[in-house]
């Protein structure tokens, strides 16, 4: 009898652009903000930002090349490429198509972009799992790459302190050695679409205003202050997250037949330190099970969950058999959660995998295997 197909996360790597923007640099001309205040409020000291001409495709390419090199993955084995980005290189063509060629992935592979932000990784895992379980693909390269810094207005500190650029590459395959992707809970509320938005540049308002100083009261009319740039209604998004995150956590547990205590580690989208603290408290998740690691990267949108998961693995926080809950929420408005189960291991590093290098905390992408992909399953 043929065993059931499982979709597994076999490897994750991430890439950060070289340029670093510190709080000190950001606060240079601000009376209101200081390094200390930013750290205490949002838990971010610095973030990486793409330089001019450095695009989502470039970051995604670096992350993918790293994935191939560190995990001995042959690009020729990839049969589907999926890229989540809201800062594509061009309105068209699809950035994933460009990456097919750059990465040396066969022309027989499928490729598509999908436009989601902070929830994108959850949706990407769901789509990749669907492709694998349907037999349409067997080795999916899931890329999440953002250069939100290019969407930000130079004077809009409320967003500049939060966002950083970055990309992550994840290999999802059929019956691999890595973490088994479990049930999903997804949600959408388009009524809140204006609460995180870049207004211009699409076909509704094709002409950018190229104007960062529209008239009117700056505070009361903020929604329209920088129409070419990212606008976030912080209060609305905060209320939204407080409302939907506990619900999606509850539902994905129900769908998985688990209780909250069964979860070994929670990896949430790293929105900002303040929001994460509040969500942790509201959900009564113990500190040791709630991984936050964004001080040197900020909110990297769709790259945030895989990057944080990889960092949790590198820090030795994910053990074979562990159940890890991933939760994304944000622009759309859109949200989703899933639970993955780390691969079983007999304790010895399996072929092709190296043990995660401990003690690296300088924020540079570190080498080493994801424990997500630890060991052989008993098959």
């Amino acid at each position, binding site marked *: 009898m043929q065993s059931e197909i499982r979709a597994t996360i076999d490897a994750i790597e991430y890439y950060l652009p070289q340029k670093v923007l510190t709080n000190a640099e950001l606060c240079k001309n601000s009376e209101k903000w200081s390094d200390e205040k930013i750290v205490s*409020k949002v838990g971010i000291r610095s973030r990486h930002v793409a330089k001019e001409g450095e695009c989502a495709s470039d970051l995604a390419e670096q992350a993918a090349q790293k994935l191939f090199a560190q995990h001995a993955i042959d690009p020729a084995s990839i049969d589907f490429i999926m890229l989540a980005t809201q800062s594509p290189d061009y309105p068209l063509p699809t950035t994933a198509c460009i990456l097919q060629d750059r990465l040396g992935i066969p022309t027989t592979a499928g490729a598509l972009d999908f436009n989601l932000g902070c929830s994108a990784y959850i949706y990407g895992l769901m789509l990749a799992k669907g492709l694998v379980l349907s037999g349409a693909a067997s080795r999916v390269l899931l890329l999440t790459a953002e250069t939100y810094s290019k969407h930000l207005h130079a004077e809009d500190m409320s967003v500049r302190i939060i966002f950083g650029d970055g990309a992550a590459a994840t290999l999802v395959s059929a019956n691999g050695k890595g973490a088994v992707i479990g049930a999903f809970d997804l949600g959408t509320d388009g009524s809140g679409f204006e609460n995180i938005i870049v207004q211009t540049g699409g076909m509704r308002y094709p002409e950018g205003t190229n104007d960062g100083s529209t008239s009117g009261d700056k505070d009361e009319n903020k929604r329209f202050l920088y129409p070419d740039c990212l606008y976030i*209604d*912080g*209060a609305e998004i905060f209320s939204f997250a*407080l409302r939907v995150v506990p619900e999606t956590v509850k539902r994905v547990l129900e769908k998985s037949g688990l209780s909250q205590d069964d979860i070994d580690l929670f990896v949430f989208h790293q929105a900002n330190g303040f929001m994460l603290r*509040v969500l942790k408290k509201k959900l009564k998740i113990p500190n040791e099970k709630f991984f936050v690691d964004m001080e040197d990267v900020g909110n990297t949108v769709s790259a945030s969950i895989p990057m944080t998961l990889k960092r949790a693995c590198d820090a030795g926080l994910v053990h074979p058999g562990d159940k890890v809950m991933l939760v994304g929420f944000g622009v759309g408005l859109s949200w989703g959660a899933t639970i993955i189960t780390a691969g079983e291991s007999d304790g010895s590093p399996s072929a092709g995998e190296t043990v995660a290098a401990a003690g690296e905390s300088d924020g540079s992408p570190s080498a080493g295997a994801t424990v997500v992909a630890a060991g052989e399953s008993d098959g």
Partner: protein
Amino acid sequence: MTPEEKLAALEEMLELEAGDLAPTTKLSRLEEWDSLAALAFIVLMDDRFSKTITGEQIRSFATVQDIMDEMEM
């Protein structure tokens, strides 16, 4: 919660001294009432009153009294 208790809770939230706030205090004149304070208020309402405050409600507040009026179960 009495009006005094509400004022005390808001003063604590805004890291102000006791007596700094009055119901008539205009929010536009209150430097501490910024976007982060608005988030803190959303948390306070969720935590203590199990109430969801929207961004629109927050934008409609003009005085401390307007905030206090929301602080009911």
